[in-house]
């Protein structure tokens, strides 16, 4: 494979990894605070739908993004209410949210647009377009560096850059701020946070809301940046892959980026390998490539590649009075 091919595959990986990364970081905030979230998928889907609907009505991608975030936050608050205030089962709540999003988006899509659950196609300002970074055109013809800069680094839409900037930002928030310290603590031992004079519910609600914001952005990316409209079940399991990536990353921001990029890369490769014969290996069934993230996660969970220990208080409602 020549450099161009590699750069182009990596470029595609970046595009495919972006929604995973946003959802994965979203999950990171929630799970670090001790609230398991298998509802990433649903929140992303709801975000995608409302992004497309709002962008279609208003013609503005920005309003679409806001709508996506709002919709996602609403679902995040439902999850928060069930798992923080009502101390319900977080897995059950997450499952419910996934179904709620799947059903509601299709239902509303059909009721509002009667296009089989789809929203109308978007164009122009209703989408986030590609951004050419300064100097990209000039550097374009410089060998290697220019190619990498022009193809791989420049030319993505805004949300892609936001997603990747979220990684250092998340790291910084988690390990350098008061909020981060408390967040890490509350996922490990909520009683310690409580007795230190910090409200556990408030802290967890904030984490869950951040999770909503990020899944909303991820959804908006799907519908109004990567594609030009919403289609039924658009998230297609990406929320679960993000969850897998989160486990893979052991709930840490930088490795999360690595894991999401890896899974995006696998996706990019599997798309390009479709029908093509890989030299030496022969034809790899696409289905195998598609299943690979899940297989890798199971292997990791089995403890064969390191050990993924979730935040200690994760999934357990904080109950001080039985």
């Amino acid at each position, binding site marked *: 494979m020549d450099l161009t091919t590699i750069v182009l595959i990596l470029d595609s990986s970046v595009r495919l990894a972006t929604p995973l990364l946003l959802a994965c970081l979203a999950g990171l905030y929630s799970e670090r605070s001790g609230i398991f979230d298998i509802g990433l998928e649903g929140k992303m889907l709801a975000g995608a739908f409302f992004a497309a609907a709002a962008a279609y009505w208003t013609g503005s991608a920005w309003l679409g993004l806001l709508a996506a975030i709002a919709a996602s936050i609403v679902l995040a608050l439902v999850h928060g209410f069930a798992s923080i205030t*009502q101390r319900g089962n977080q897995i059950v709540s997450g499952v419910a949210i996934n179904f*709620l999003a799947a*059903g509601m988006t299709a239902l509303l899509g059909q009721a509002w647009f009667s296009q089989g659950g789809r929203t109308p196609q978007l164009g122009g300002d209703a989408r986030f377009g590609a951004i050419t970074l300064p100097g990209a055109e000039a550097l374009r013809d410089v060998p290697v560096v220019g190619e990498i800069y022009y193809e791989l680094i420049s030319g993505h839409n805004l949300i892609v850059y936001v997603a990747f900037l979220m990684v250092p930002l998340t790291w910084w928030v988690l390990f350098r701020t008061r909020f981060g310290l408390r967040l890490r603590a509350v996922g490990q031992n909520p009683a310690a946070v409580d007795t230190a004079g910090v409200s556990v519910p408030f802290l967890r609600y904030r984490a869950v809301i951040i999770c909503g914001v990020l899944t909303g952005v991820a959804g908006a990316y799907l519908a109004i940046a990567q594609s030009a409209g919403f289609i039924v079940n658009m998230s297609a399991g990406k929320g679960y892959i993000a969850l897998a990536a989160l486990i893979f990353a052991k709930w840490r921001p930088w490795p999360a980026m690595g894991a999401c990029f890896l899974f995006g890369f696998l996706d990019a490769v599997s798309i390009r390998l479709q029908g093509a014969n890989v030299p030496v290996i022969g034809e790899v069934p696409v289905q195998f490539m598609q299943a690979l993230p899940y297989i890798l996660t199971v292997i990791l969970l089995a*403890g064969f590649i390191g050990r993924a220990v979730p935040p200690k208080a994760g999934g357990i409602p904080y109950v001080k009075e039985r």
Partner: protein
Amino acid sequence: MSAPFEKLPTWVEVGVIPLVNVVVAFLVAGLVVLFIGENPLEAVKILIWGALGFGEGVGFTLFYTTNFIFTGLAVAVAFHAGLFNIGGEGQAYLGGLGVAVAALALDRYVPWWVTLPVATAAAALFGAAWALIPAYLQAKRGSHIVITTIMFNFIASSLMVWLLVDHLSPVGSMQPETRTFEAGGTLPELGGLFHLFGADMGAAPANISIFVALAACVFVYYFIWRTKIGYEIRATGLNPTAAVYAGISTVKITIVTMLVSGGLAGLMALNPVMGDQQRLQIDFVQGAGFVGIAVALMGRAHPVGVVLAAFLFGMLYQGGAELAFDMPTISRDMIVVIQALVILFAGALEHMFRPGIGRAFALMSTSQRERVVAEEERP
């Protein structure tokens, strides 16, 4: 699954509270219908008529009910051991492979009643096998079974696509599906039975696998509440430490429970594959594995509750199809929404109305607790 906040009598615990939760779920669903601009009462009327108003509707309702009994039982059995089997979808999918293998091998040579037990065994076996790895990883390596079973759903889906596209579909077929089974691989339908009651089942696919489902209910009841291993399963689910103290191997219990759970999920395939379509298709499970979660939560993990909840969901699925037909603005996704609301209110928010109900109840009668105290204080 639930830590009781206050002690309420059993009939409130297993009767009133779940009922209130489900009713609230439906009320919220009604609001959704209203929001879309349709009349919820009209919708309910169409739904109930569609599900029970005529022979064919009933036939479809029973067809879906059969699916949900199996998957609901699968989730319920796992609940008793404190396990959350979210992998019913994948296990049922693999169960379909078992059914297809049995039917494809036998349908040309033996009558259906010979194929049925073999297919049943194969479905259970394949479903159980698909649950085995997550079970083993949970038991031996502590990998969270919720995550592994989710992963296994996806892996199952890829595996089955690969098998159906590349290996099982006849050459030249446009659809990734096996050939159609012949008479020896086809389950008799319930049309005859309907005729006894003077009804016409029309083309509804309800078939005798519903009896397998009911037998599975009886099996689960005895298995959980009457056998020693069932006792051990419940002990493990309620207090794993006490189970270890009692000499119960949690590894064994986790694996056995998941095998039974996966087997039950696998059996679900009998109904659509051998009963309805007579061929193995892509995605034939169609979310029934997930409906099982709602069914088990609503049915409080008890076979009787599961049958009732499965019937309710069967009605929803069939009635919902009619509803989508007659009210074009309400698509079938309404069912998914209702399902989500049931899971939310009967599962994650199950305690929301408890304090209120508890208070209401305390006003009405002497609580069990007081009875206990009174008896204790008796000299």
